[in-house]
């Protein structure tokens, strides 16, 4: 009896292996594998699932035009589940088992920091589409989101200006992880440089998934009594929903105490009644309400895709900055592959330095070969009752990213320049010094 059982088991195992082998053989011709590494569940799912959707939309768009070098893009989707160590495991799986040519992923900086060693060890390529705190420039990562000088600094300057309310006191409120902590460190140095004292700056952190903002909002009101105050919010994930609800319930008006958020866009506002939040601010490099022909086309085609694929929430779906950054990143990668003639990471990396792409905001966005960031325009928008943003300020043209903040003394000397002769992302001297090498940023 046992012998028969083992032989049946062996037979089944062989059959399964044979079945598994067959698709792999046929999949090798005519496809390019692209990894999607986002949180599709957990506290960050509210923000990240739309990035997976826009990637699938853009894959369809490229495949319809013949794909990349004639190869169709095949997505490999993995769920990081808002679990940072899991992100690293999934990254390893994408690079070593699925052998993807490029990965688009991560939102929180902690997820990016978790996957960074994996990408650097396996020489992978990651496109990171979200605004972040800077202080990083990896050989293996392309940052299509905003660095602090392309989002946070202009926003604070706006708040301090007459038009923005002339704020004199600032509350720095964030979720407790690396991005808000580092951004607030940069902002504190920046505020000091503008003459704001520590007494007029208040820093508060809450854990991921936190939902009880009663005392924090009450504290903000107390801190604001008597002096014009603004709140700079780096709260991430679905904690934003109870935070804004509490603001509304406690009667915090945007014209008295404006709240500018760096991680809240059209997608996060979809889940809340935005009427009590009218007037609060967000700073991004793209808004769905921007009126250009390119943006109108982008939104129209996205909505068609949503309808055709019956995505949940149908016509309530929106576009936002990380989606636009993802879209730009993917097209730049496709252009670079076409230019390099191969999906080999090192070749594509060199080709990426020459890419520009006409973004939905109407600008021709170049990718900076030196620090792997994009030059981006900056917009500041006020929340409208329908969950869209009305642009109240925009930058004069494109702003080059500063990966290392000039406001923090330690990083002010650091240079991120992957071109010769520096060839480093985090150094104070070039790797190949020679007599005619000129020190530059």
């Amino acid at each position, binding site marked *: 009896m046992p012998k028969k059982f083992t032989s049946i088991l062996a037979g089944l195992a062989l059959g399964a292996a044979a079945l598994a082998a067959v698709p792999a053989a046929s999949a090798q011709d005519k496809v390019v594998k692209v990894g999607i590494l986002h949180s*599709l*569940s*957990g*506290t960050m*799912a*509210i923000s990240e*699932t739309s990035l997976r959707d826009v990637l699938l939309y853009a894959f369809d768009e490229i495949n319809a035009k013949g794909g990349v070098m004639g190869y169709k893009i095949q997505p490999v989707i993995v769920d990081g589940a808002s679990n940072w160590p899991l992100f690293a495991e999934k990254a390893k799986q994408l690079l070593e088992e699925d052998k993807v040519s490029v990965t688009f992923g991560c939102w929180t900086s902690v997820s990016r920091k978790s996957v960074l060693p994996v990408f650097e060890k396996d020489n992978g390529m990651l496109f990171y589409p979200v605004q972040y705190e800077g202080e990083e420039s990896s050989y293996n990562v392309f940052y299509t989101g905003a660095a602090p000088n392309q989002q946070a600094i202009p926003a604070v300057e706006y708040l301090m200006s007459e*038009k*923005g*309310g002339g704020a004199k006191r600032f509350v720095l409120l964030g979720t*407790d992880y690396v991005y808000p902590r580092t951004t607030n460190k940069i902002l504190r140095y920046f505020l000091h440089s503008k003459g704001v004292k520590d007494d007029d700056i208040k820093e*508060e*952190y*809450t*854990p991921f*998934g*936190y*939902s*009880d903002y*009663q*005392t*924090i909002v*009450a*504290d903000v*009101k*107390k801190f604001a*009594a*008597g*002096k014009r105050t603004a709140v700079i919010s780096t709260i991430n994930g*679905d904690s934003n*929903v*109870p935070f804004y*609800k*509490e603001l*509304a*319930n*406690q*009667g915090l008006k*945007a*014209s*008295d105490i*404006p709240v500018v958020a760096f991680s809240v866009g059209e997608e996060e506002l979809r*889940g809340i*009644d935005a009427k*009590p939040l009218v*007037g609060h*601010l967000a700073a991004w490099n793209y808004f769905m309400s921007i009126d250009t022909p390119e943006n109108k086309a982008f939104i129209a085609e996205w909505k068609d895709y949503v309808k055709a694929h019956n995505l*949940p929430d149908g016509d309530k779906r929106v576009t936002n900055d990380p989606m636009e950054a993802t879209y730009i990143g993917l097209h730049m990668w496709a252009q670079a592959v076409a230019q390099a003639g191969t999906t080999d990471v090192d070749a594509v990396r060199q080709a990426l330095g020459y890419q520009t792409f006409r973004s939905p905001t109407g600008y021709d966005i170049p990718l900076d070969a030196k620090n792997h960031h994009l030059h981006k325009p900056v917009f500041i928008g*006020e929340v409208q*009752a329908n969950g869209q943003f*009305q642009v*109240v300020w925009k930058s004069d043209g494109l702003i080059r990213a500063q990966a290392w903040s000039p406001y923090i003394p330690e990083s002010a000397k650091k240079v991120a320049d992957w071109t010769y002769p520096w060839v480093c992302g985090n150094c104070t001297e070039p790797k190949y010094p020679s007599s005619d090498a000129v020190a530059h940023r």
Partner: protein
Amino acid sequence: MLRQAAVVPAAAALAPRPVAAGRPGLCLTWQRYLTALALAVATFFNGGAARADTSDFATAVNALGQPSGDAVTSAAQTIGASGDARALGLLEALRDGAVIVTDGGEVTLRDASGALHDAVTGAPVAATGHPATLDNEVRRVLDPLIARLELKSPAPDVRLAAVQTLESRSSEDDAPVMRDALASEKVAPVRRALVAALAELDLASNDPQRRLGAIAAIQETGSIRFRSTLQGLVTKQDDGTYSEPDPRVRSGAQSALAALDRKQFMVDGAADVMYGLSTGSILLLSALGLAITFGLMRVINMAHGEMLMIGAYATYETQAFFHAHLPEHESWYLVASVPVALGTCMLVGALLERSVVRFLYGRPLETLLATYGLSLLLIQTVRSIFGPQNVAVENPHWLAGGTEVFEDVVIPYNRMAVVLFTIAVVAFVSYMLRGTSLGLRVRAVTQNRPMAACMGIATRRVDTWTFALGSGVGGLGGVALAQLGNVGPELGQSYIVDSFLVVVLGGVGKLMGCIVAAFSLGILNKVLEPIAGAVLGKIVVLLAVILVIQKRPQGLFAPRGRGAEGT
């Protein structure tokens, strides 16, 4: 609009010089007579203001249609200063987004039914348009303009709110308007508010006596809004001198500051207690069901958090049902979701008990593992049915907003409702356990199972009912949580540890212990939060619980006597 345009030039042509706002003089020279006639004609055709600066008003109203925020701001200021009777309504409409600029550039007001009327004449306009430019800059200018006009409103509440708006601005321009209002104000709270607002402006006066008087008035109000102003008076500047030259004024400010701080301390304490009660009520709701299953049955139910989650999803489904089939009563979905959540979770609880838990009584480690597995199963089931993302449960409109109990301390209505709901649930559970025969049987089985069996009680059925009751109460907790936070498949995971903390701290087996523990933990958490921050506050609370359990392992309210361990 055309009539307006025709009449105004006529009036301008007839008047030899611009007539200031005010009644035309009684002395009837032929010029004044003709001007009066023109004005009367203008009034007849406009059916509104009888002011000769109607032209300025009309120009300003038209300027509201400009796309530039600066133009709208200056137009609003002109309207506010015009003295026209329609100014207040117009500015309020602008603030509320009811000023619509038609595609032809005409400025109209949208009334409650959605129809458009010309902003100056009131004539109906049939056209489409877009709202006038409105951003924070315009709002900042609008609020004090509206407040100044509202100072003359017949309703005292409106006047009081207007004074508070102007006071928070503390601008010298508002002083004359406020002094006028004070001269004719009869209602006491509004008088006090005006006195306080003017006192703050008096602080900038040159006369030290007036400054002293202002400080005394401020101290009497006890309002924290003046804290930074007073602080500025007593702080040394960078060059070593004080910004306030008179030492008497400085010492007055110092004692006023001390008094304010004392009052603020009391207010803070009271506010923290109220927030703590709200947090505690949430803890209690989540822990009450566990108090029944763990406390009474000694079953370590790691799936209890999922009962909260299922209750929250039941609320979401009820809302969806009402939205689809009973839209006119939609905001009453909350009342309907209470029995729905209770029933659903009782069913799920009974199912769990019958299928898994009943085989593991008396074996706590296996129960722990098995219920943990059940919780994962439940989370994944919900995820497969509803999707991994959060679902939106909206507050009914009668629960939105809040009430101001102290200055700047606002208690939202939804949290008050949760506290009341918690009291109701506790009363329900007490009644179930003490007032019904089922409760009697439950207590009997808990105290002495073999004896109860001898008395003819169907112990296994009572077990199922107890577990179902505990799960059902967890579902009721989920209804409340759906109002306050996000509803997603992992909702229960955030509350399970806190629930166990409360039950263990309170004393396993005692309902009163659970109540006291929940509110103490909630208040302690909220008192620590402003001092230590959210993260550190939570750590300190956990450490405190550990210390209490070390000292008193049986919990705060331990059951007396030799409790029989259930088998």
